[in-house]
């Protein structure tokens, strides 16, 4: 085999690169692609924040602003967060369960190209006569029909979302199949590492939530082209139901793997086994099941959903979420805490997501939701969950696994500055939005009256967004510098507990030369504990013989 590889011409090498089905190549590509979209969508957010720095901002017009937030939200959800989650899963799940590769890896490869192609098609909208899609990331009908949103940008957006969602669906299926079928001997389901468990529930949610989205989008395009779909009585409301049946689970889909990464980071840098493994796994499954029964809380002001049912199910989510906090803090409790950058981001994740979670319980209460719905309060809430939660979790994951993927360590000094800037930036940007929303500022406005008194808080938010941009730039500098500095990480720089640390960094083509015995979800910790026990026994024996 290797001689064949050597004789490949460069052209065929390129083809091989494009068509590589290796899970690590796939995961790395998904990750780099997702980060590219993150930077682009973040840039759109900066333009929006600059527009809102003054009342009657003149940087972009209303149309331009509507395109900006539509593309910002869609890109962040479909092209950044979802692929990033799948990137972590595609790269780490086979390693964590001791598998040589992903199941159905060609299907996963198709998924990658569908997401990339979908993103490119979506962004092609900027070059059409009427500009990019501008009906918001949930594209309610009839706003998104051809009369109200003319132009091909919206069609490209629908096709882009369809492709990206289908691609994500395929990759999630592959990751789940890998977990079900490719576990190493001894790796029972209740010995899966915590991150892999979060991928199990994530893939289950993708497989159940994405088909309604795919259907909703296909019907939306037919509606645009031919009409007659959502024009039936209550059609617009039917679209809302379909969309949110996907739209709520998706925010858990782009959250749970980061929680999983954070759980690995906390356990590793506390030098302890993850606390309360079984309750944790159960809470994840409970969360995933409940994620299918809370979508109506997006529609509490429509008069079309049973508000009490959705208030009940949504509030009940505090129980599994509380279990996750308990387990996180209990793992740190009496551990030997090392405040690496990954650990700082993990702790930041816990605290920032808490703001998002508590405000989520707030808006699950109908009397409060009647006020907050459609306002900046909601913007603040979901950015605390998705930036304070998911993005902090992503950076924890990146600082933690970067040495495994590249074989090199990221600079901890720059990383600390990156962390502090992100922490300041996220709070400056999103905390004022709670106040603005409670004071009556609606979402998705390019403009606000000078008499509203909202400028100061908007200026704070704008300043915060620049700090966030600076922090991301600093992270990129850190990546470039660290790769250039080339400090070898070794197979296990952190005293990791799971199987990915039992192989070289980066791992070889088929991941493992040999596997340690798997007796729990933390096999490397078991090994170290056993060795420590033997050392203690030997020391005790030699002490005895000396006397």
């Amino acid at each position, binding site marked *: 085999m290797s001689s064949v590889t050597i004789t490949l011409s460069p052209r065929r090498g390129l083809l091989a690169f494009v068509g590589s089905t290796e899970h690590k190549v796939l995961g790395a590509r998904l990750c780099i692609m997702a980060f590219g979209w993150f930077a682009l969508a973040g840039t759109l957010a900066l333009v929006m924040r600059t527009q809102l720095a003054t009342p009657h901002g003149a940087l972009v017009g*209303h149309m331009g602003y*509507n395109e900006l937030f539509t593309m910002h939200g869609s890109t962040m959800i479909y092209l950044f967060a979802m692929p990033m989650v799948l990137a972590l899963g595609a790269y780490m799940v086979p390693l964590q369960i001791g598998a040589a590769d992903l199941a159905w890896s060609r299907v996963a490869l198709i998924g990658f190209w569908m997401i990339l192609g979908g993103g490119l098609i979506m962004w092609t909208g900027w070059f059409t006569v009427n500009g990019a899609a*501008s009906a*918001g990331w949930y594209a*309610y009908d*009839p*706003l998104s029909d051809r009369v*109200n*949103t003319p132009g091909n940008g919206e069609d490209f957006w629908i096709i882009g979302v369809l492709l990206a969602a289908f691609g994500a669906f395929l990759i999630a299926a592959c990751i789940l199949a890998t977990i079900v079928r490719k576990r190493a001997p001894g790796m029972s389901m209740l010995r899966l590492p915590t991150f892999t468990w979060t991928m199990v529930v994530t893939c289950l949610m993708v497989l159940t939530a994405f088909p309604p989205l795919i259907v909703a989008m296909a019907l939306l395009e037919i509606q645009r082209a031919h009409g007659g779909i959502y024009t039936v*009585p*209550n059609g*617009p*409301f039917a679209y809302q139901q379909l969309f949110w049946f996907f739209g709520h689970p998706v925010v858990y889909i782009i959250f749970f793997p980061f929680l999983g990464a954070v759980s690995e980071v906390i356990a590793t840098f*506390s*030098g302890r*086994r993850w*606390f*309360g493994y079984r*309750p944790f796994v159960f809470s994840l499954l409970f969360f995933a099941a409940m994620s299918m029964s809370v979508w109506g809380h997006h*529609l509490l002001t429509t*008069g079309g959903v049973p*508000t009490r049912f959705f*208030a009940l199910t949504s*509030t009940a989510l*505090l*129980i599994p979420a*509380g*279990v996750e*906090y*308990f387990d996180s*803090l209990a793992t740190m*409790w*009496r*551990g030997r*805490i*090392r*405040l690496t950058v990954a650990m700082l981001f993990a*702790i930041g994740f*816990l605290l920032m997501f808490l*703001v998002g979670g*508590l405000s989520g319980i707030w808006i699950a*209460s*109908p*009397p*409060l939701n*009647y*006020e907050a*719905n*459609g*306002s900046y309060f909601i913007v603040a809430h979901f950015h605390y969950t998705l930036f304070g939660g998911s993005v902090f979790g992503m950076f924890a994951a990146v600082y933690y696994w970067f040495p495994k993927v590249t074989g090199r360590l990221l600079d901890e000094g720059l990383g600390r500055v990156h962390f502090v800037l992100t922490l300041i930036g996220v709070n400056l940007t999103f905390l004022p939005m709670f106040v603005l929303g409670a004071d*009556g500022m*609606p*979402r*998705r*406005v*390019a*403009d606000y*009256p000078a008499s509203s008194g909202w400028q100061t808080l908007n200026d704070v938010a704008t300043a915060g967004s620049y700090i966030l941009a600076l922090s991301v730039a600093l992270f990129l500098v850190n990546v470039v510098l660290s790769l250039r500095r080339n400090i070898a990480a070794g197979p296990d720089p952190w005293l990791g507990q799971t199987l990915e640390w039992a192989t070289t960094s980066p791992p070889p083509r088929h991941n493992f030369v040999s596997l340690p015995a798997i007796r729990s979800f933390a096999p490397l910790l078991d090994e170290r*504990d056993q060795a*420590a026990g033997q050392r203690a026994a030997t020391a005790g024996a030699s002490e005895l013989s000396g006397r």
Partner: protein
Amino acid sequence: MKLITLAGPPSRSLGVIVDTQRQYGQVATVYGAIAIAVLILVLVLTVVIVVRDRARVAGEAPSRVHDAPRLEAVYVTALTGIAAFLVIFTFIHENKSDAALTTHSGLVVQVTAAKWHWSFSYPRYGVSELGTDSSPPTLYVPQDQNVDFRLTSIDVIHAFWIPLTDFKRAAYPGYTQNFVLSFNKPGFVRNAGVCAEFCGLLHAEMRFNLDVMSPAQFGRWLSSQRAA
């Protein structure tokens, strides 16, 4: 003045003045206090753990305890209790704020949302207040009376929101939403109402003013509009 007697004291038909703002305030106070307490608790706990266990001397091994089923069961029970409290507390107040979701025989205001302006009409009196994209209309209402709103849209989904009332409703084309609100502070508020559902190009400009008048003033306004 005669018009006012025609409208009748609407509170009679409902029994109470609908006060969504008060329900919001009461739920917000309790939820806010709990949220801030939890936030502080977790923050303090995290800082204490990090400061204490970061200083752990190298020789001292981390704890080997890796679960506490009984403690966690007690904790989950407590969480369930908190969730139950929040849900019941919410339901009690929702019963009161959802009293707004009704119709009664008082003053009826027909609200029509359109891209990108509001219009209000008082069908019983043949009076209308039309907005345009460039000049927002004013919603005139009598103080301390239940006002019966009939909300609809002629094009896309909009949402009617007066932040002062802490209440909003979505407006659908071809469908009418009924709700009752009351306004307890007199005076004119510029840009008091907004559209809270993204509705296209000029969504940001889709506002209206609010003028809460004494019943006598309101009666005079109605008759002046009728005369005009």
